[in-house]
């Protein structure tokens, strides 16, 4: 599993140390199971995500 973790970190170009990769791996299986459980929510099968794209959106300066 640590090779999976190293691959994921490398793909994102995150230079984690060996110790950090090992520590992340320790929690990864539990985390992955929790993420996979989101696909087992029946009510979400045909639901739009809480994301929206607005064609007319502009970038407004927050300090003006």
């Amino acid at each position: 599993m640590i090779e999976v973790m190293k691959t994921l970190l490398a793909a994102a170009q995150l230079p984690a140390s060996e110790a950090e990769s090992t520590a992340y791996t320790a929690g990864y299986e539990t985390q992955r199971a929790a993420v996979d459980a989101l696909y087992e929510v029946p009510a979400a099968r045909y639901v739009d995500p809480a994301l929206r794209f607005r064609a007319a959106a502009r970038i407004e300066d927050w300090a003006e």
Partner: protein
Amino acid sequence: MTDLPQTLTDAAKALREGTVTSVALTQAAIDNADRLDATIGTYLARFDDYALERASTADAELARGEDRGPLHGIPFGVKDIIAMAEGPTTAQSLILDRSWGAGKDAPTVARVKAAGAVITGKATTMEFACGMPDATKPFPIPRNPWNPDTWPGGSSSGTGSGVAAGMFLAGLGTDTAGSIRIPAAFCGVSGLMPTFGRVPKSGCVPLGYSLDHIGPLARSARDCASVLEVLAGFHASDPDCVDAPFSVPEFDGDLSGVRVGVVRENHFPEGSDPALAGTFDAAVAVLAERGATVVEVTLPYWQEMITADMITMGCEALAYHRTDLNSRWDDYFVATRAMVATGAMVSGADYVQAQRVRRVAQDAIGRLFETVDVIATPTASVGAPTFDALAGPNGETDIGALFSMIHTPYWDSVGNPVLVVPMGFTVDGLPLSLQLAGPAFGEAAILRAGDAYQQSTDWHLRVPEPAVQAAA
């Protein structure tokens, strides 16, 4: 100091009655900072001269009848991930470009300034509003004024400790997984996470774009209401901000007709403080004595929303930080880079699925709020942990174990408003906290419930011993 008002609300009243001045309030706040800040690490930057000048101006304005509202002349802290013109924003990080936001006020800061608040300084945070303290970095370690060997909570650590220690009467925090409510709980003060989108979050260094909230920490629910009234309202610079201004409701202490849903499931895990159950039951009993009808409920999609918060925050934070992480990994705090790296461990589809389940949970919680007006839970199952207890088996912070005892991230995922108020103490004498959640844009209901509770109790007025000693 002990003769000065303890709450923003009382201070505002005293200012108008002429029994205290803003300069006196501000000088007392500065004196407390002089005595305590080196120990508890509340501030990253202090603006003593600026604050005293603002206080003097406030006194003059109030004397000639120019009243800007309850924040006028009130010492006020700002978490240092929110831009303020008087100093650079650091996010308590070596990474953030000091030119970001330089010379500018975030909309929330501009609003509290316009309301006459006396901003005394920029308060400490966990780096970029996530992670944990890192003694290897050149920043103060925030400590809890109730016991400096314990963590004050985060990430709005300095805002929580500053209110508790009398360095300001209210301040701004941010909340993405609990960062207003955790320090409020551990420091024994009140804190309000407003409904997502009610308060503009632009001008604040982002952590999770779809999760971030700016809100107040203060002594009481009434104090939080006064700050929210100033903060709320549309701002075009935040694409999530909605036109939903807030007016302080009537605080009559009467909860007749209010339905309170009490949640126990998942909130009393093994390892909970022995005082938690009795303290929580007593708090619920106070709400009932005030007229509320109490029913037991469960929160839908509990674990899924905790997972959604983790995925969403990780992915959104990684998008913001990836370039800097690639080149300056070691300059980040250890716990920060661990949290942000979780965004690399999920796929784009996982992120979208999390947003689909968030929508399902929003709908479910909306239906639950058709049957109750307020939901009550403990904020955390334990009091502030010692720094030693936070260390994992390899000496690194064990955030997973900590968050099994903290019950805040669910509400960031669904976006509802949540107020936390002190409700008693652990067996070791550290604060415990009651969490009151409401329907979207239902801040008035939870603030009225919190105020009613505080009319019957004085937990929110308890002052940590170190602060008392400093004030003597």
